[in-house]
């Protein structure tokens, strides 16, 4: 898989509490939207993506190729990140209420493990059709799910920002985890809610479809349109795609964040 990322503070806020980590070599893509104010949000989201990355690299070293092992590793990594954020919050009083959402895609062969906590999202663009792979842990989604308000009424709600699950809030956290098969030409979109609260799904679909030959440009345009529509929140967009013949000839090489092992490996084998 190849990947491109854009992250922007938005038009109204003075700092960016989103963090992301993309590691194309290990097929791991993460976006986290921190909360807690006074810079605590950034700390929580950064701690989250770094901890999960470290944990999943350690899993990778074990060369266990079973999918169910990877699913367990993802759940465990999120749990460790939750614990680390709780510990960080206890250590500094100004971070007492820090927390974060997280959304991740881990590629294992032909399968993608999709996990999330909170209201950051993963969408899949396949054959020109965009569909969400995650269901927000938010008050609004729960109200609609319980039949209390309709999709139509949800547009008038002020509850779109209230999450019902997050890392850092309780001693244990329960992510939703799904497995999706990957087909050539698929594009996975990971985003913080600064994208989908500012840009309707139909426009996200249109932009991704029209610009699928240049995902890096698509990511920039998505962030640009979120800001054009008001840019009320930080916005992060990561696009990970499985190359289909000829379609991505122009795309720049994937960003890769290599650890010491990765660099050594690359040096030894000329990658």
């Amino acid at each position, binding site marked *: 898989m190849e990947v491109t990322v854009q992250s922007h503070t938005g038009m109204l*806020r003075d700092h960016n509490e989103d963090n992301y980590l993309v590691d194309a070599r290990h097929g791991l893509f993460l976006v986290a*939207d921190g*909360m807690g104010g006074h810079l605590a949000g950034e700390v929580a989201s950064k701690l989250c993506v770094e901890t999960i990355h470290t944990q999943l690299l350690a899993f990778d070293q074990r060369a266990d190729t079973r999918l169910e092992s990877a699913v367990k590793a993802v759940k465990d990594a999120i749990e460790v990140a939750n614990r680390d954020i709780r510990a960080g919050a206890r250590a500094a009083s100004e971070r007492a*209420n820090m*927390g974060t*959402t997280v959304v991740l895609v881990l590629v294992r062969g032909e399968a993608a493990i999709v996990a999330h906590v*909170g209201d950051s*999202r993963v969408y899949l663009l396949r054959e020109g059709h965009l569909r*969400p792979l995650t*269901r*927000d842990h*938010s*008050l*609004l*989604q*729960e*109200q*609609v*799910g*319980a*039949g*209390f308000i309709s*999709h139509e*009424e*949800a*547009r*008038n*709600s*002020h*509850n*779109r*920002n*209230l*999450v*019902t699950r997050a890392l850092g809030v309780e001693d244990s956290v329960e992510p939703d985890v799904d497995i999706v098969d990957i087909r050539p030409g698929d594009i996975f979109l990971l985003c913080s809610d600064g994208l*989908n*609260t*500012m*840009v*309707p*799904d139909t*426009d996200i679909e*249109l*932009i991704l479809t*029209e*610009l699928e*030959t*240049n995902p*890096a*440009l698509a990511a920039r*345009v998505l962030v*640009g*349109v979120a800001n*054009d*529509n*008001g840019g*009320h*929140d930080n916005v992060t967009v990561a696009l990970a795609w499985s190359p289909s013949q000829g379609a991505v*000839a*122009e795309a720049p090489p994937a960003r890769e964040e290599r650890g010491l092992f990765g660099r050594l490996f690359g040096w030894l084998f000329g990658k």
Partner: protein
Amino acid sequence: MAKLLITRAGEAPVHRFIDSERISMGRQPGCDLILDGNGVSKEHAVLLTIGNDHILEDQGSTNGTLVNGQPIRRRILQNRDQIDIGPYRIQYVNQRAMSNMDFDQTMMFEGEKVAGGGGEAVVDTSRQRRNSGPLGGLRGVQGPRAGENILLDRVIRTLSRPDGSMAAILRRPKGYVIMRVSGPEPLRVNNRPVGEDWVDLATDDLINLGSDVYAFYLRPDTPVGAGEGA
């Protein structure tokens, strides 16, 4: 805190802060907000607080509950909504809802969680405010679309050639921008090359994608920046 401003002809207005999760309104003495008058049912309506929302529900009243002149069964109140119950006019005032900004920062919901759910469709949480600046279009000057009028009424539109050369035009609040997307042929605007860093378009600009030529226009009857804001 959000409040209700309750008025009745000939009487001084009364403020009521929305300080509990359920406020019943009606003629009956047990109601949290007693509205005594003709056309008010015993328990006429209730106001529920869920997260940041205040939801007004008619309780099957005889004469109905109106919000901004329309009868409602249930409505998520918006700042400055006018509620009519019998002879009472009630204005809903929520300072936080004015800017809307408070409702964009991700926060943990501390209240009671809603039971049930699962399997339902994912909510489209986007606001109903779209970028709708001035409307423009393209006239095909040379190439397979010569003589055609292409209205640029969507957020994005691409121009392409069979060899995969592609440009995209993005509709923004104050006008249009163009950028090169992919393919072998260069994109030029008024003979200047354009890359992935988008550039503004102005009326009568000539766009060349390879040998295809288009002329851009802005419709003069659409004001710049129209539709911006809430």
